[in-house]
């Protein structure tokens, strides 16, 4: 380990910007970005499934609030949502004295809430589209088998809807990764925050931002690869039969 550090130090010896210290900023930034994006995507996904089902409900009191939520969060910039949640909670009278403040004091949770609600709204719309485009024949066949609504949803509608939603959802994941770059406006040291810090410290915009762009490219490539692999497996039945 020590020889590795020495090797790294020797490699970095002839530049003044990418020292071990700045690299550790980038490293911590990478961890924060991945944490933030991954957690918000997971929670957003869990949120989106019931909402997508509810979005197509025949009861207006279920359908309309969900529509309104999606409309608001897709209709306003994420940056504005982040600002409102981070600085807005402060204006709730006496919040500093409640247990909520413990989690809302640091910027991570407010940012996580903003990102989750945002990706939740988009994912809901993606799933709703996929559910709506279930072929009529499949539903009629399920009914003919005497399946209840819940069973039909679980066995027929949702599995095929998820498969259809996969390519669009892969895009959403990449968008979310890139959108997370605004986290640094609420003092989170994510990847972009680290780049801004290095830029301001060494007056080296190109070095700082090209380096961070390369990291984002690697992350995006990993996501693309993962979703391609998933699509290959789960959408195998849709591929044209070749000799």
């Amino acid at each position: 380990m020590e020889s590795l550090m020495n090797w790294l130090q020797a490699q970095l010896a002839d530049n003044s910007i990418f020292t071990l210290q700045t690299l550790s900023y980038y490293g911590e930034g990478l961890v924060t970005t991945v944490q933030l994006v991954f957690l918000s995507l997971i929670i957003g996904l869990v949120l989106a499934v019931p909402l997508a089902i509810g979005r197509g409900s025949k009861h207006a009191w279920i359908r309309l609030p969900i529509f309104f939520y999606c409309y608001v969060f897709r209709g306003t910039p994420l940056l504005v949502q982040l600002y409102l949640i981070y600085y807005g909670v402060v204006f709730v009278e006496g919040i500093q004295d409640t247990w909520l403040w413990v989690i809302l004091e640091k910027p991570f949770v407010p940012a996580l809430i903003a990102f989750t609600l945002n990706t939740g709204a988009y994912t809901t719309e993606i799933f709703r589209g996929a559910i709506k485009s279930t072929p009529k024949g499949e539903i009629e066949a399920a009914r003919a088998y005497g399946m209840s609504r819940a069973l039909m949803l679980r066995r027929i509608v949702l599995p095929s809807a998820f498969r259809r939603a996969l390519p669009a959802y892969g895009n959403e994941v990449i968008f979310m990764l890139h959108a997370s770059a605004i986290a640094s406006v609420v003092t989170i040291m994510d990847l972009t925050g680290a780049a801004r810090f290095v830029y301001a410290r060494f007056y080296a915009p190109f070095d700082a931002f090209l380096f961070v762009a390369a990291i984002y490219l690697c992350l995006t490539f990993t996501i693309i690869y993962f979703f391609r692999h998933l699509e290959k497996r789960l959408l195998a039945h849709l591929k044209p039969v070749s000799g």
Partner: protein
Amino acid sequence: MKLNKLLSIGVLGAGMIAGVANAEVRDIRIGVDVPYEPMEYRTADGELTGFDIELGNAMCEEIGIKCEWVVQGWDGIIPGLMARKYDAIMSSMTINDKRREQVLFSDPYFTPPSAWFAPADSEITAPDETTLEGMSIGVQRGTLQDNYVTDMYGDVADVNRYATADDMVLDMDSGRLDIVFLDFPVGKSTLLDSEAGDYKTVGEKITEPKQYFGDGFGIAFRKRDEALAEAFNEALATLKENGTYADIEAKYFSE
């Protein structure tokens, strides 16, 4: 008769020598760019005032010359000196090597101070590595204050970097930050003089080490006016000794 002539030549010569000396340290004009509170600005009735103006006038008085202030935009302030529109610049100009190539600087007469600000009920009295441990410190991203805090306390405290001082004040109001480190005049106007909350400065104002806080402000002269620069240096030393400097500083940089 002959003796008389000789004498008069002698007197003339002495007068000429004195005249040359006077030409070097004479009444001068000083270029300044306003407004830059609290260093130089105009009062409501249009009169020039500020730390630079008062200190400059005090120095001139000490030397025994008359000084006239000439307002000049920052972009053209060094060219204006070269073009003899005025003979010196005293306008919060930071001494650096690039400028040294063009002008002659006096001794630094002021380093803009930075200071710690905290809520009035804060228990921190002297910021150091133990008292700041685990604290949330606010700084403006990319400023010298950011560099200083990051290097000094980055390992023990949680450094939060903000794009603007206003965002930082908001988070200080809400209780997210325990203490912030700011340019003193900025902190004074945004925190001490604001109605948002009750704040105080903590510890001494900080102007050292030079590596972070720079060489300070200097008066710029044309390179050949060495005698003039020397006269101002001596005046500055005298004013620092007799307390005038401290009085002027207190007037513009006290809480």
